[in-house]
């Protein structure tokens, strides 16, 4: 009776088993890397907008305060998107003929809103509120990055749960005095730790246990 398995069968078997293992590990590692990638998180990608609006120009060059356009940031969950009317308070005087601003003029003339593409977005099951974060001394820059340096707006941080939790677990290093919330050039003092502790007490910031309780953001 001849041999069923050839002499090299064992080697083949080992090679295939090893190959399968390597493939499986590579597949999962790749999938993980993809899920953690900026592409997946929409980070650093500036979507096409109807008007190539530059935060850099309006903040750094013109010195306009965030709240001029995002007017409900202190009073509501939503920061508020500027109406066409707000754009036109200046642009009825400045750059009145600029081709880039044609969609804005058209919007006002036709009373039809501009469709912007949202850059910073959290999932529907996250109930984020701007007003409370501003009131507790969390600066815009903490989540939105150096938006004053962005010619085109992109998402600076991956809005994943671990990003939120990083701060909710230990808010102190991320706090600053309320008056510096909109200041992109604010530099923490030498004893930042002490300032953080002081602000935690002064602003009555809730304990990490409460801040990380599921119901704080999900309901």
């Amino acid at each position, binding site marked *: 009776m001849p041999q069923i398995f050839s002499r090299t069968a064992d080697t083949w078997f080992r090679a295939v088993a090893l190959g399968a293992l390597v493939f499986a590990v590579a597949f999962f590692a790749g999938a993980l890397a993809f*899920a953690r990638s900026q592409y*997946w*998180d*929409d980070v650093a990608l500036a*979507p096409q907008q109807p008007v190539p609006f530059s935060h850099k120009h309006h903040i750094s060059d013109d010195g306009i305060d965030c709240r001029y356009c995002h007017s*409900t940031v202190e*009073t*509501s*969950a*939503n920061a*508020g*998107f*500027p*109406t*066409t*009317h707000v754009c036109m308070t200046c642009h009825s005087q400045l750059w009145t003929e600029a081709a880039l601003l044609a969609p804005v003029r058209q*919007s*006002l003339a036709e*009373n*039809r*809103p*501009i*469709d*912007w*593409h*949202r*850059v910073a*977005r*959290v*999932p*529907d*099951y996250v*109930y984020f*509120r701007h*007003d*409370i974060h501003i*009131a*507790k001394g969390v600066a815009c820059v903490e989540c939105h990055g150096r938006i004053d340096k962005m010619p085109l707006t992109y998402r600076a941080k991956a*809005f994943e749960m671990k990003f939120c939790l990083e701060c909710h677990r230990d808010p102190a290093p991320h706090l600053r005095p309320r008056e510096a919330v909109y200041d992109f050039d604010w530099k923490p003092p030498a004893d930042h730790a002490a300032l953080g502790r002081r602000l935690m007490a002064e*602003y*009555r910031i*809730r*304990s990490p*246990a*409460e801040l990380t*309780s*599921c*119901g*704080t953001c*999900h*309901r």
Partner: protein
Amino acid sequence: MSGGKTFWRSLDEYQRSDAFGEMLKAEFPSIFELWTADRRQVLRVMGASLALAGMTACKPVRSDDVVPFVYRPEGFLEGRTDHYATAVPFEGYAQPVLATTSAGRPIKLDGNPEHPAFRGGSTPFMQAAILDLYDPDRSQEPLMAGRPASWDEFDGQMVKWRDAWRASGGAGLRLLIGSTTSPTLLRQIAELKRALPQARVHLFDPLGGYAGGAPQRLRPKLDAADVVVSLDDDLLGPGPAQAIHGRAWGERHGDAQERMRLFVAETTPTQTGAKADRRLGIPPSRLAMLAKAIVGGGKVTLTDQELAWAKEARQALESTRGRSLLTIGPSAPPQLQAAALQVNRALGNVGRTCEVAAPLTYVPEPGGSFLDLVRDIEARRVSALFVLGPNPVYQAPGDIPFAALYAKVALRVHAGLHTDETGAISNWHLPLPHALEEWSDARSPDGLATIVQPVVRPMFDSRSLHEIVASLTADAVPSAREIVRKTWARQLGDDAAWAGALKTGFVAMPARAAAPANVIPPPSPAAAPKNGEVEIVIRPDPTIHDGSFANNGWLQELPKPLFKTTWENVVAISPRLAAELKVESGDVVRVESGGRAVEGPAWVLPGQPQQVITLYLGYGRKRAGRIGTGIGYDAYRLRSAAEPWNAVGTVKPTGERVKLATTQEQHLMDAEGADLIRTVTPAHPSALRNEEELDRTSFYPEWPEHDPAWGMVIDLDRCIGCNACVLACQAENNIPVVGQHQVYEGREMAWLRVDRYYAGEPDDPETHFQPVPCMHCEQAPCEMGCPVHATVHSPDGLNLMVYNRCIGTRTCSSYCPYKVRRFNWFDYTTDAPSPTEAQRNPDVTVRGRGVMEKCTYCIQRIEGAKVQADIENRDVRDGEVTTACQQACPAQAITFGNLADVESAVAGQRKSPRNYSLLGEQGTRPRTTYLAKIGDEPDGE
């Protein structure tokens, strides 16, 4: 001490049948019936579920569009809700509401807290009115002979008709309106009669009687009454004044110093009877006799039980002169109303516990009843009939073939929210706006008026009733707003006063002198049944009412307070009659009277008078919409114009049997040996059964103390079982409607249920209501059961549900001793027809398929209040957080707040000796506790 009394939920349980015991052991009764799989099948299903579970989890968060305004509307704040005072109609009366809108769309209605009579109280109908606004079956454009037409075409026709009426003084023109209290409509009717003296306005009021307006009734002021004797008056049941009476009830119960004592004699069990201190079931034919026994004079033939009740009631009335009240229901013979007025006058009650006032609703002039219209159509005196609002083809009594008569009228115009039975056979159908889309006015049962203001633009191509009426005489019709403003020109002439009235939501109206009492027809003693016959009582359905709410899914799925059935009407039958006929709940019976018959499923109703059966109106609709069409039987067929509330006839089983979608035996707590419902008496004021209940030893570590510590107390003495809380919860928390078949399977989704218990003999039991939301146990068994930590505890004591973690094992639900967890067996929301999604609360997650959900203590409201307090750097104040159920409760039976704050209302209630925990012996440490009902005699022992 309270034990000793046995409570039961259904007759099956009362008889302790084996099937009931088995059912109790099953978590979901449907599984108990269906689960016959062997081990292999289980493994196969498990494997497939695991493989599929991984596929659904990952979806990247992609950016979407954001569309800002061109101009921001004044006062508009993105992400915040606005509130507007207005009113929704019920039986023509105003139900003053505060409408919450989010981004311009109304999402919730609640009682107007500043209204002096309603004071924030709700009814289920008020809560459900918002769903009618988004009813996808509402009529959306004018129809001419069933085909879409435009308002321009209608206006073109109107010019011709108007010219003809002007020439003839309106001869042949008839208007048919529903019950109304609108001062503007009453003004317009008066003007129309002046402009077209030959035209006539008829009233169609199926709940007031077909022969004219409702008989004049006393307006009760329950809050001033120490003793109330009700003869078939369902004060606490559905009605325009339910929230007002509920509030008064709450104030005179619970911890009130002066308790109200309530005597109820009723022809069919009602919520009022359930709450009575002394209840008597009596057939309608003997009600007049009972009244005679109370009023005194004349010989009466009553049973000993009836005589004893009458004697006690009479003594109670007399011993509290000036603080007592005798009230008669609208369905009782009209001559009893006059007798009651006499008694209350003699006792000095008038002006204190009740008022005699002119009716607020439209009272037709002689010749203006529905029956007069029928006679005129038969005599061919009607050439044009404008049906403005009501649905007479469906709601006419069975002895008037109104559909055939209506077809004889040459010009038939119907205006309504739906192309209903009447609209379908009209030449023209005109869509009316929903109350939340229009300008109008109406009066609440206490006499105050409310200006109805729109809170959203009309969604469809509708036109206000006021504009339609105005166009009958005027060539150029002003807007509804101007028409309403003209009515109020004298009182609210300047803009500030007008704006003020809109803001507060009510206006005082000069009281009219009480009109002379209606002509009382000669007493017609209710026909006594002959041998083999039964007495038939006809009542509005507890949730669908007269049929106008038939297409409202929330109300259809709302368990009826006493039967706990949903999605259909039943024939209520007494346990003894059922035994005689060998009928059980669900057996179809045929009820015949006056040569007409209906067939419907029987419901054996404890407390139903013996030889009496009850039919419920509102079902059997042919054109209600996708929800309400074709379910239940039509009790209007058995009604007669002369005796709309009572009949005499026969009942017999047909041999058929249907499955009723009842929630009565679903989500049962295993009550073996537990005192779920407790009563206390003045002699035994403590609800605790023994000292052991105070023993807090546990294997588990104590839940750490924390401020705030949220908790709730529900006062069973105040609860009137009205279900307003259930629908408020449904509206607030985006709870889906699952449909009749899912309710059969025990899959209804309500987070808050009101359990109904009986005690004593089925012929004349005590009835108890118990609202059961999630208990938010400190030692929550569900949390110990969940394999993926999808249900966890927050430091402030909320038992949280994390939908994204839930994999749907339903272990938590089987571990929950209170059975308050609900599972999404299907995706109930994605395919919901537009525009119903616009009602959803943006602050609450819409749950997907395969996850568990349950009461959250309205965490969105807690978080909202916490954020506001944190922004202002202060603590949350007591009363700042109200749950939706608490806010809706007219009787103020629900208190919510911070238990760690000793000054808080909820902490105060916890100290009451009546306080007890549901299934406290299981050591779950519930944060929701109950206050025992107060009885006035030793119970059991």
